[in-house]
């Protein structure tokens, strides 16, 4: 067996010797009791020490968590058992009684009991609720090393250094301490009789079995969780397995391997495995059924003292000389691969299954891989090759192996692979559809192999390569512990390198443009050329990731699903209650595999990241849609928007006025700011608004703010600067009113109102200033009056010299009338989007409504037309279509035996003509003469000129030009319609515009031109159809019938259209009406137009046309017949209404004014050449190809419908199918 590989250590602590371990049943916690008297509580997921409990004196050997209560119990060398609350972080009470070291303590799974084993040779059961000793079990005559409750039954098992294992029946104890009602008299009697008392008269716990077999003391013993099995570990270095029945117990087998004392052992909670730990520094894993060693994990220096299993998840812990390790036996990540809408994954029992994302169904088992690797080692990766429908599975077993197997077409149970190719390798992935790469880490090589498992090339990857991943076509991503290399396989060199530590997984985006490199704590997003786009760090371990279609990476940590955008913005999508591995995101569903390898669907709300993505991409419609349709508004998104510089968008979400104001200021949306400021009306807001508005030049808002704030001075100045003199003078008035002289002075100054200023100075007795002012402005009268008032004369005053009097500037532009032109961007894109979106919506509605009324009828008829065709199309679909061929692999080729020596061979084009009796294949082969011969024989074709475009079309489609060696002309290859055929006697050329194409394209175009009254076009199209069918091939007999139908239909339309065109060629309406000859002919032709068997809606058009013409010429009888036929046909109500009206009108006078050759009751066809009736019973000639009919005199002419064949020449019939 291999040693020491495969252990997955999840956590390690450093401490003194660890003697006892307990897992918390729910939380990621582990209790460790140490030889140094401390009890540690660790979070093994985060790797942090949560708490320490130090009340024991001396080593603590046993600990256990309570299953449901926030309690744990410990027992130590101080003889004490302590019960603790980890919530209050203190010891609740101590149970005293043991007379020596306490070795183990365990809670009962449902009763409030604790079982303890002690060196005083007793096992005791305690009630922790009333803190009493219930029972002391004696019998062992040496230290009792371990005692455990049975997980379901009323049993205790104990191990002792007296070399025995004892099983105790404690049902008596339970009965004694449960409610007395449950015990009837009979029970009491039965119990009294059944339970023989032990030598001390104790009936509560009796020895049921004594298991002897160990040659030395037994250190540990444990029950199996479900089966009647016991495992024990002893100083005789043996692990013994015991089985018990109702009445007896016996030794089953021994696991040999430990070469020192075995200190602990347990059953794997979910698998048929036994784990044991020993002082030989090993942990060993044994197969429960075969008792053979499965794994051995060796530690260098530390002896193991104890081992424990997590009750729920696949985790174990072992205590050793220097601490504790938490580990897993195997990886739980199910190997999986996604291709388009299918997930391929490997279940726990090693079966390949697939899961369809669209239908949400699991397939049955496709393949069983039981034989791959060892039974206890799950496969590590799977790589899927859609072209070959094969999988490449790697397993770490035997130093790394890979296996290439083909999946069966449909899974029908566990099929062993029919043939598989395998080899040694640590990683194996498909790199092309016919190549895969295998990494061998031990000798550091990468081999590129073909599907037959032969190495086609091999190279040395960069030093220390640990893994390889697909790197885009022709490339590998090579992972080393410190870097990722993009390696070009063809050139054998690294084309790019990026230093990223410890990458473990690579996840490609769906479009192949980006890849996410996942390491334990980091996600790095790179482009396909390995340029780093962004990186992020997670404290919690990252487990998996997948891309959504829009380029958002969703990744899972141990407890969250998170997202990250390409720009590194990330967030939480949802929490997880268990670890899952994401495989795909679609809409609101995240598909993942859980640890049991079951596909699961998680519901998520993608709104947040979609919104952010839309924001980054400035996709405002999408954002608008999200805003309107989801409840996204939250503080986080607002602050996000603000932080990211989109305050104008954040503004759309916010209701809170204060925040709205802030955002509005930030994005310069003054309207909103004003609105909010009005609402709140706080001076502070007005101040800020005024500043912002001033910066914008929006002075009307500034004015309002100043008004609100009563900043008169500022207001005045504002009016001054904007040149608003009227308001300025009003300000002056207000100032006067308020008695604010400074302000009044200022305003007067601004206004240049000298008198006012003088008046004011006088009012406040500042005569000198008044005088000066008056004097300076030359107001002599005023000067005099002041002098008078003060009683002074001019001589008494000593005046300085005056300069020019102040004159306030005159406004040049009436700025106050309008704001400064502000930046256009002040209206956010988003608002615009919002507006235009709303308009757009309403418009659409209108249009839809209008449509509904006006064009409904037309649409109905059109739909009816196409309905039949559509059905046909579906039937015909699939023929002559190329498919992905995965035919049988055939060695060797069809070898046209011929002499090896030179001489040119015959080209494939020649073969086509040889292989087929169809004209079209001869045309494609370039053998035009033989093609013409064939057509002449088959349908009497004589006039080939119209077929020339079709001949050349078919011929042009037959060859491709492959550029090969430089300097030489391209290699010609021959395009086949028999794509999968390799037999050269059966290959046939591709046919452009096959039957299906004609029916769904040309025919529809023909119909359209009929509807649109473009008859010349229609005629051309239908003749084109005839020519295309003539040179064509089909895939089956039923299609031959369809082709015949198409020919007939095209022929009828051709005749119909040419009749109507002939009528129109008679001349304008006036000329026709004036000439009775022409009028008669015109009426006849219009009547004949209704005869060919064209589609009903089109016939209605012809009938309408004929009816109207007849009406106009007072041919009421004919008109009546047309009206009747229209009514019989049914269809669009407008037409019918018209017909009904005509009918009513005609019935009053059912006579024809112009006699025409048209007997509405007779059966007849129309001669295609002369456009006259061929009554049934008369002789006629036909075109052998299109079936158009002619009067006998036209025999030998070229058919006017197909323009190719000779009328009346009967050939062998057109051949379209080999």
């Amino acid at each position: 067996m291999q040693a020491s590989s495969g252990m997955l250590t999840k956590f390690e602590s450093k401490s003194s010797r660890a003697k006892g371990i307990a897992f918390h049943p729910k939380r990621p916690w582990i209790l460790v009791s140490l030889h140094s008297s401390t009890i540690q509580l660790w979070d093994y997921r985060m790797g942090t020490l949560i708490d320490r409990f130090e009340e024991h004196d001396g080593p603590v050997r046993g600990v256990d968590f309570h299953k449901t209560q926030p309690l744990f119990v410990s027992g130590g060398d101080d003889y004490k058992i302590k019960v603790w609350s980890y919530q209050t972080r203190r010891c609740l009470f101590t149970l005293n009684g043991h007379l020596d070291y306490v070795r183990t303590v365990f809670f009962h799974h449902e009763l409030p009991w604790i079982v303890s084993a002690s060196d005083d040779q007793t096992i005791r059961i305690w009630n922790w609720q009333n803190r009493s000793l219930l029972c002391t079990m004696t019998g062992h005559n040496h230290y009792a090393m371990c005692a455990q409750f049975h997980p379901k039954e009323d049993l205790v098992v104990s191990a002792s250094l007296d070399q025995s294992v004892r099983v105790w029946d404690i049902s008596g104890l339970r009965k004694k301490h449960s409610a007395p009602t449950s015990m009837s008299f009979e029970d009491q009697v039965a119990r009294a009789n059944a339970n023989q008392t032990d030598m001390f008269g104790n009936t509560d716990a009796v020895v049921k079995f004594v298991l002897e077999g160990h040659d030395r003391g037994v250190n540990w013993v444990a029950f199996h969780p479900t089966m009647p099995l016991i495992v024990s570990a002893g100083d005789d270095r043996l692990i013994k397995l015991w089985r018990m029945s109702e009445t007896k117990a016996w030794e089953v087998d021994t696991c040999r391997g430990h070469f020192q004392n075995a200190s602990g052992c347990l059953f794997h909670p979910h698998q048929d495995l036994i784990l044991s730990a020993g002082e030989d520094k090993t942990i060993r894993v044994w197969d429960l059924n075969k008792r053979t060693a499965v794994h051995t994990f060796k530690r260098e220096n530390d002896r193991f003292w104890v081992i424990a299993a997590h009750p729920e998840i696949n985790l174990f812990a072992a205590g050793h000389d220097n601490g504790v390790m938490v580990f897993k036996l195997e990886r739980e990540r199910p190997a999986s691969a996604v291709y388009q809408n299918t997930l391929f994954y490997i279940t726990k029992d090693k079966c390949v299954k697939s899961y369809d994302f669209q239908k949400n169904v699991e397939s049955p088992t496709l393949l069983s891989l039981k034989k791959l690797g060892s039974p206890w080692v799950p496969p590590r990766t799977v790589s899927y090759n859609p072209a070959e429908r094969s999988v490449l599975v790697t397993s770490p077993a035997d130093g790394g192996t890979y296996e290439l197997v083909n999946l069966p077409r449909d899974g029908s149970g566990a099929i062993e692979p029919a043939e598989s190719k395998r080899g040694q390798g640590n990683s194996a992935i498909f790199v092309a559809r016919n190549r895969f790469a295998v990494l061998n880490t031990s000798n550091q090589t990468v081999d590129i192999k073909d599907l037959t498992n032969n190495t086609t090339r091999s190279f040395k990857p960069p030093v220390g390569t640990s893994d390889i991943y697909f790197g885009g076509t022709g490339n590998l991503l090579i992972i080393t512990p410190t870097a990722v290399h993009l390696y070009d396989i063809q050139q054998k060199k690294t084309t790019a390198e990026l230093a990223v530590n410890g990458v473990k997984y690579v996840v490609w985006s769906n479009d192949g443009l980006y890849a996410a490199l996942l390491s334990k704590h980091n996600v790095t997003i790179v482009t396909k050329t390995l340029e780093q786009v962004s990186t992020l760090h997670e404290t919690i371990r990252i487990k998996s990731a997948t891309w959504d279609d829009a380029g958002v990476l969703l990744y899972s940590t141990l407890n969250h699903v998170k997202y990250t955008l390409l720009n590194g913005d990330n967030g939480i999508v949802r929490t997880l209650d268990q670890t899952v591995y994401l495989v795909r995101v679609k809409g609101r569903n995240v598909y993942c595999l859980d640890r049991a390898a079951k596909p699961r669907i998680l519901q998520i709300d993608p709104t947040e990241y979609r919104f952010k993505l839309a924001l980054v991409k400035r996709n405002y419609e999408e954002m608008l849609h999200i805003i309107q349709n989801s409840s996204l508004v939250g503080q986080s998104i607002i602050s996000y928007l603000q932080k990211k510089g989109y305050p104008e968008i954040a503004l759309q979400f916010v209701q809170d006025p204060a925040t709205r104001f802030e955002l509005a200021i930030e994005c310069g949306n003054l309207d909103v700011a004003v609105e909010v400021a009005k609402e709140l009306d706080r001076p502070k807001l007005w101040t800020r608004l005024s500043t912002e508005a001033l910066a914008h030049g929006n002075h009307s808002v500034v004015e309002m703010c100043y008004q609100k704030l009563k900043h008169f001075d500022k207001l005045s100045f504002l009016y001054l600067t904007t040149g608003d003199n009227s308001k300025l003078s009003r300000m002056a008035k207000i100032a006067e009113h308020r008695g604010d002289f400074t302000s009044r002075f200022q305003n007067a100054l601004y206004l240049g109102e000298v008198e006012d200023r003088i008046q004011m100075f006088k009012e406040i007795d500042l005569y000198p200033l008044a005088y000066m002012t008056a004097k300076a402005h030359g107001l002599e009268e005023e000067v005099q009056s002041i002098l008078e008032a003060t009683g002074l004369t001019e001589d008494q005053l000593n005046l300085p010299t005056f300069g020019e009097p102040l004159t306030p500037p005159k406004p040049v532009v009436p700025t106050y009338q309008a704001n400064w032109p502000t930046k256009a961007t002040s209206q956010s894109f988003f608002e615009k989007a919002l507006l235009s979106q709303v308009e757009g919506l309403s418009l659409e509605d209108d249009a839809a409504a209008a449509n509904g009324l006006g064009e409904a009828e037309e649409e109905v008829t059109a739909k009816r037309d196409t309905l039949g065709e559509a059905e046909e199309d579906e039937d015909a679909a699939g023929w002559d279509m190329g498919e992905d061929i995965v035919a049988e692999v055939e060695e060797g080729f069809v070898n046209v035996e011929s002499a090896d020596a030179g001489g040119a061979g015959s080209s494939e084009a020649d073969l086509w003509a040889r292989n087929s009796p169809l004209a079209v294949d001869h045309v494609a082969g370039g053998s035009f003469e033989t093609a013409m011969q064939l057509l002449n024989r088959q349908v009497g074709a004589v006039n080939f000129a119209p077929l020339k475009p079709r001949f050349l079309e078919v011929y042009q489609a037959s060859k491709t030009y492959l550029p090969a060696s430089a300097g030489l002309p391209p290699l010609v290859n021959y395009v086949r319609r028999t794509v999968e055929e390799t037999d050269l006697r059966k290959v046939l050329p591709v046919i452009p515009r096959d039957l299906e194409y004609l029916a769904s394209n040309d025919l529809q175009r023909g119909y359209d031109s009929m509807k649109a009254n473009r008859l010349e076009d229609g005629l051309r199209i239908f003749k084109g159809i005839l020519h295309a069918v003539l040179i064509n091939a089909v895939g089956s007999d039923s299609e031959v019938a369809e082709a015949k139908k198409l020919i007939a239909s095209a022929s009828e339309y051709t005749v119909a259209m040419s009749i109507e065109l002939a009528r129109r060629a008679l001349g304008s309406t006036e000329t026709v009406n004036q000439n009775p000859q022409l009028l008669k002919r015109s009426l006849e032709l219009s009547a004949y137009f209704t005869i060919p068997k064209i589609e009903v809606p089109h016939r209605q058009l012809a009938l309408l046309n004929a009816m109207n013409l007849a009406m106009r010429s007072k041919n009421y009888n004919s008109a009546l017949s047309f009206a009747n036929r229209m009514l019989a046909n049914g269809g669009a109500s407008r037409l019918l209404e018209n017909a009904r009206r005509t009918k009513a009108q005609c019935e009053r006078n059912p006579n024809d004014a112009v006699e025409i050759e048209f007997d509405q009751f007779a059966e007849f066809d129309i001669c295609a050449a002369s456009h006259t009736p061929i009554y049934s019973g008369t002789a006629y000639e036909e075109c052998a190809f299109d079936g158009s009919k002619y009067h006998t005199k036209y025999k030998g002419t070229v058919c006017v419908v197909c323009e190719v064949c000779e009328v009346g020449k009967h050939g062998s019939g057109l051949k379209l199918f080999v």
Partner: protein
Amino acid sequence: MDPYSAEGELINIHNHFHQGQYQEVVDFDVSSLSPENALPARVLQLRARVALGQAEDVLAEVQGEAGEGAPELAAVSALAAQALGKADEAVETIEGLAQSAGDNPTVQVLGGTVLQAAGKSEEALALLERHQGSLDAVALIVQIYLQKNRNDLAVKEVAAARRWAQDSLLVNLAESWVGLRLGGEKYQQAFYVFEELAQAPATSSVQSLVSQAVAELHLGRIEEAQAALDQALKKEPGYAEAIANLLVLNVIAGKNAEELTNSLQKVNPEHPFLTDLAEKNDLFDKAATKYKAKVTA
């Protein structure tokens, strides 16, 4: 050691050449090559320049050196002359070289090319068959066989080369050429090879894109082929082979191809598609005259 082998110095420039990445060949840094590989590298670069339409410059460059001592350069001058339309002169040079230096691999390959281009397939094959393990020669032989419609011989040639050259680019290419003739699942295999070349940024070229498209056309995957051709034309709008194949594709898809015919006419009026079509045009007219109706209406 074979300089073209996977570990050789010339592997990359050689691959570039055969992947149709001529510009990369010209830009290839040859300064670090060992002296014995300098000449082959130079020949490759000269050939690439001829392929890029710089035949005149190449001719001028080698004219002086193409003396007795350098049959390789003489062969290059013949190739350039051939490219410039001086076929007779080129053939003459090659025939001389075949006598004097017929064992030189460059002479074989270039000579084979020139002779085949001049329609002298037998002579070309005779010269090429003297090769000693040259994959270039094998590829040429395969192409000549295919042009002669001797698929059987081409298959044999590839199978033989596959035995000693395994996964080399040229063998893969030659096998794909043959595969496109043989059809069936060989189409798919050829497609894989071309797709791998065309889609990897390091090896992608117009030539490989067109090859991929051709394979897809043969597989009946019209839309995919169209995408590849559009991609090729975006890279090099005047690439005659891309236009020709797009033309064929349009015809197969039932679309109008007149515009493309015109642009092909502009780019390369001598393209086989056009010469062939003109020939068939005349053939049709000639054949059609044999028939006429008994009575003319």
